[in-house]
């Protein structure tokens, strides 16, 4: 195993039991995240990106496959190991209004993770550390005794970030941290996350449905559809040379804020199918304009079509004229 891979996933699966059958939320994902980089995970709602993030943060058990963190097998760790892992891997949640306890004030909220991990001795140390964290995430000291409902979405998300940083983790899963925010505030939070990554040498897994955001922040991007990997490449490569028909459709669906773009439009028909008891073929086949016989019967392997550019499509080469 490479030393500089902080996270490594092999054939990672997460199934949920439902009354209608087995829900394949994440189905056989393999990837690595190098230290000090950002892996962006994109896909539409229900594609399993949040489930993947929660598994990596240790909030969901793994159904099958294996997961390594800093070279250590963390697939299904013991209770004790789990707790010490939370010091090294953390999560920033999507909705800052529902992920914060409404009855705790800002200073209590930020101190809570340190309290659980017993990271301070005495009130003075605790307050100093809370103050330091508030300063890092750009929350003015006067908010220390405010409650979440008194603050706007941007400030609440800053509390979420401070909580994630409280234990000095190495790796943070950011689950749609800016999608609930307005653009001008979103830009402030994105800049903050980028600064923190740089200053503290953090590694992020950045989950979002917004391709403009993911392009801006990520080094590598993983495109998911119904629990499966569709394409995985560096950010630059993926946007310059998308190979998978799904990625192409996704890119073309994003409205560009300029009146001078003459893009070829390619609107995908249909909707995301159900992840419960999925068919054996390619998950995207029912919406794909290139789908042919093998797509409906055989699930495509992830292949390295170009150097460090992976794509799971039976016709990856044909579709791209290679």
């Amino acid at each position, binding site marked *: 195993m490479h030393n500089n891979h902080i996270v490594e996933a092999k054939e990672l699966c997460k199934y949920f039991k439902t009354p209608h059958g087995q829900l394949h939320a994440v189905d056989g994902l393999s990837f690595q995240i190098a230290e000090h980089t950002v892996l962006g995970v994109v896909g539409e709602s229900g594609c399993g990106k949040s489930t993947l993030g929660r598994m990596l943060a240790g909030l969901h058990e793994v159904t099958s496959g294996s997961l390594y963190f800093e070279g250590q097998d963390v697939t299904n760790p013991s209770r004790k190991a789990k707790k010490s892992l939370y010091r090294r891997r953390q999560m920033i949640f999507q909705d800052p209004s529902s992920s914060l306890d409404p009855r705790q004030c800002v200073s209590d909220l930020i101190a809570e993770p340190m309290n659980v991990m017993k990271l301070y001795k005495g009130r003075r140390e605790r307050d100093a550390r809370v103050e330091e964290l508030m300063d890092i995430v750009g929350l003015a000291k006067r908010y220390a005794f405010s409650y979440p409902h008194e603050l*706007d979405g941007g400030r609440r998300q800053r509390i979420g970030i401070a909580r994630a940083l409280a234990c000095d983790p190495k790796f943070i899963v950011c689950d749609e941290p800016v999608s609930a925010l307005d*653009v*001008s505030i979103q830009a402030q939070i994105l800049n903050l996350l980028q600064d923190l990554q740089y200053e503290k040498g953090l590694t992020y897994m950045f989950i979002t449905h917004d391709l*403009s955001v993911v*392009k801006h922040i990520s080094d590598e991007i993983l495109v998911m559809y119904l629990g499966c990997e569709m394409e995985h490449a560096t950010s630059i490569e993926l946007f310059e040379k998308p190979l998978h028909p799904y990625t192409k459709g996704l890119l073309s669906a*994003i409205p560009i*804020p300029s009146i001078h773009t003459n893009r070829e439009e390619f*609107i*995908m028909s249909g*909707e995301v199918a159900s992840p419960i008891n999925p068919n054996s073929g390619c998950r995207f086949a029912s919406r794909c304009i290139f789908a042919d016989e093998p797509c409906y019967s055989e699930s495509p392997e992830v292949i390295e079509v170009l150097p460090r550019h992976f794509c799971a499509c039976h016709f990856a080469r044909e579709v791209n004229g290679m």
Partner: protein
Amino acid sequence: MSDLLEIKDLVIRFDTEDGSVHAVNGIDLHIGSGETLGLVGETGAGKTTTALGILRLVPDSGKICAGSISYKNVDILKMSDKNILDIRGNEISMIFQDPMTALNPVMTISAQVMEVIERHQACTRGEARARMIEILGKVGIRPERVDEYPHQFSGGMKQRVVIAIALACNPKLLLADEPTTALDVTIQAQVMRMINDLKKEFGTSMILITHDLGIVAKSCDSVAIMYAGEIVEFGSLEDIFDRTSHPYTKGLFASMPRLDVETERLMPIAGLMPDPMELPLGCKFHPRCPHRMEICTTDNPQGTEVNYGHLVKCHLHTTKNGDMD
């Protein structure tokens, strides 16, 4: 003027226990037949309140304090309650933001579409049903599904039902309040294309409320940028995208990460949207403005026409032209 709708100096306030919320503060807007106007702004800018004002649906705590909204040269604000009921949902209709809450969960979608048709058109039940099937067909819902309940549809499909309800009586003006915000991008693309096609087919005018300048670039003819209850910039697509003049509009463009332009670091607008209960004196944007001058803190700028039809509410532009008043 041949404008279908003309709003003049509209002021809407909400009175609460803690004081009044100044949601809409003297806006002027006009929209011609068949045109699409984009109303852009962040949360709390007063976009939805403006749309509700046009339909006289502002909630009870709110009050339309001043101004006029003339639709086909009749002031909506002076109409009798009976007349407004005949216009609402018939001549002017609204597509609501969240399809999950806009539909009644215990009524089939066919009943919800027919309700509008039967209220506004003199027709038999059979005719209303035929019309319902026709309009739901236009938004891509097959006849065999019309008697199902909202929970049996996906989010994108529910939004199609909401659109069908809005279009059921061939309205002259459509108020679309963030019609695709709750949807995934690929579904958003489908729904936006459908709205634009139907709009063309019926010759409907539309006010499209959104915070996404990408959608505006694709679907609108003119754009109004709203900030703290005021329209700070108004103009054609070219005016707003190529001759951006107001510091707030410029800030919006600089805050967005983009697919078509490489940006190392975003340039967010400093600070936050002001509390609509305590709006700053002078220009509402001055506490966040990088070009703030002395006068901005005391005087609210008047709209200045920097180009034909391109209005900007900013002292930078009033002083340049030397016509301060």
